[in-house]
């Protein structure tokens, strides 16, 4: 594509990466390339580690699924900070799990002693009602890890009678509306709900054509 200045550039396509070249490369992959790709995939795997009552850590797959009635997930720094400031405290809540992952944007560890500025993903349980769970996920979960996160975390929970609430934030500039976002009183709340959610929602629903993406969407 030629621009006004006369130079020729390759236009990035809204359709995403054109995979034609990589399709041919995949056929010509050497065993070395395959090995590198496998190692990279392994590095990008997510580990969900649950701390049992006795204090011992174990892999999630060895456990019985948790009985869970309420699961609140806070995704992103703002939402995680909200939970830290208004909900969490060391008296009523205990840490029961952590997610260990790595991607190009962040790395979390399996330590549960974290600073607010760290990237982490921790699970808490209400001591007075052990069916109420909370998750603070301030790390960025990459596209190819989102499905894995979903399956591994929800795979450990009994889903009957489970109510899930997801808290997240988006920049106001991304909000699509007829008026300009400059004049909008912000911050403001919007919600999306499944048809199984019968309770009253505390704020207006998200209007078309706005969408939610990444981990909250997954």
């Amino acid at each position, binding site marked *: 594509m030629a621009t006004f200045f006369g130079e020729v550039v390759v236009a990035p396509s809204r359709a995403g990466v054109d*995979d034609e070249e990589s399709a041919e490369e995949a056929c010509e992959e050497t065993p070395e390339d395959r090995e590198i790709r496998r190692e990279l995939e392994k590095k990008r795997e997510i580990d969900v580690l649950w701390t049992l009552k006795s204090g011992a850590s174990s892999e999630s797959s060895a456990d019985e699924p948790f009985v869970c009635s309420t699961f609140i997930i806070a995704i992103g720094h703002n939402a995680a900070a909200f939970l830290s400031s208004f909900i969490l405290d060391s008296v009523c809540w205990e840490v029961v799990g952590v997610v260990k992952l790595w991607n190009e944007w962040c790395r979390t560890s399996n330590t549960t002693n974290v600073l607010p500025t760290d990237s982490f993903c921790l699970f808490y349980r209400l001591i007075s009602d052990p069916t109420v769970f909370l998750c603070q996920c301030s790390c960025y979960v990459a596209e190819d890890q989102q499905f894995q996160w979903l399956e591994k975390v929800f795979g450990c929970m009994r889903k009957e009678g489970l109510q899930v609430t997801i808290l997240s934030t988006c920049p106001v500039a991304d909000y699509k509306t007829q008026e300009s976002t400059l004049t909008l009183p912000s911050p403001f709340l919007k919600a*999306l709900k499944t048809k199984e959610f019968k309770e009253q929602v505390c704020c207006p629903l998200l209007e078309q*054509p706005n969408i939610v993406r990444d981990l909250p*969407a997954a």
Partner: protein
Amino acid sequence: MFVPCDRGGGSASSDFKGSTLLVPAVSVGNVGQLAADLVISTFDMTKVGYFYTDCLVPMVGNNPYATAEENAMELSINAEVYSLPSKKLVVLQIRSPFIKNKYRPFCQTLLSWVKSSKCARVVLLSSSHAYQRDDEQLLGTPLRYLLTPDLEKAVGGLMQELNWKEMEKVAAYPGINDTEKVLHIPGGGITKLLFTESCSKGIQMAVLLKFCSEGDNIPDAFALVNYLNEWLQLIKSEVNTSSQWKIPSSWRLLFGNGLPPALF
């Protein structure tokens, strides 16, 4: 991968035997997806299920085809299936890009679902970079078609009558050896892969594509959907059919919000 919706209509709503399946390729200008939106919106098609897949970037929003407050609150995700039994038409709409290295598994799963659901034929709506046309392609219609051998037997004659142009093959080694020709669809996303796989699996597939560039692709979507209509006759009309396609409410604000009054 396919999860039917619980609509109380039983399994009848997800019986696709003998239907025509429209699938958009995530391609330049998203033309296939826009065209699919027009079809779903115009015929007020019913959602019959979705794909539970890890191959597409997750997204969720409220009903993109909402016409009133009552139907505005149904959630919509990245890959959903709509049906219009009266025309034996099924549309798969894809709303987000592929996750890196996942387009191949998606194609495999999609084609095996096509076979198991016994769709009569698949029409892949796609597009290709306009700037990669050669001198001949710059003239005349920007619309092209492709047919797998199995579908060629059934409708090849009809394409001749409609005076449609088949997508040209290009030299595999341009400038060096012009005899060996290959199919090349730049910007077409998974189009070429789906087409070649369908040829080898004996699936009746047609590819309808338009040469275009990124920009305001709404006119391209109309052109593609009218092209499709020349064949499938979804809208019967002797006059201009463009005005009969209904634009969905989600196409609002495609190019940004309103302007701040303080700017002036």
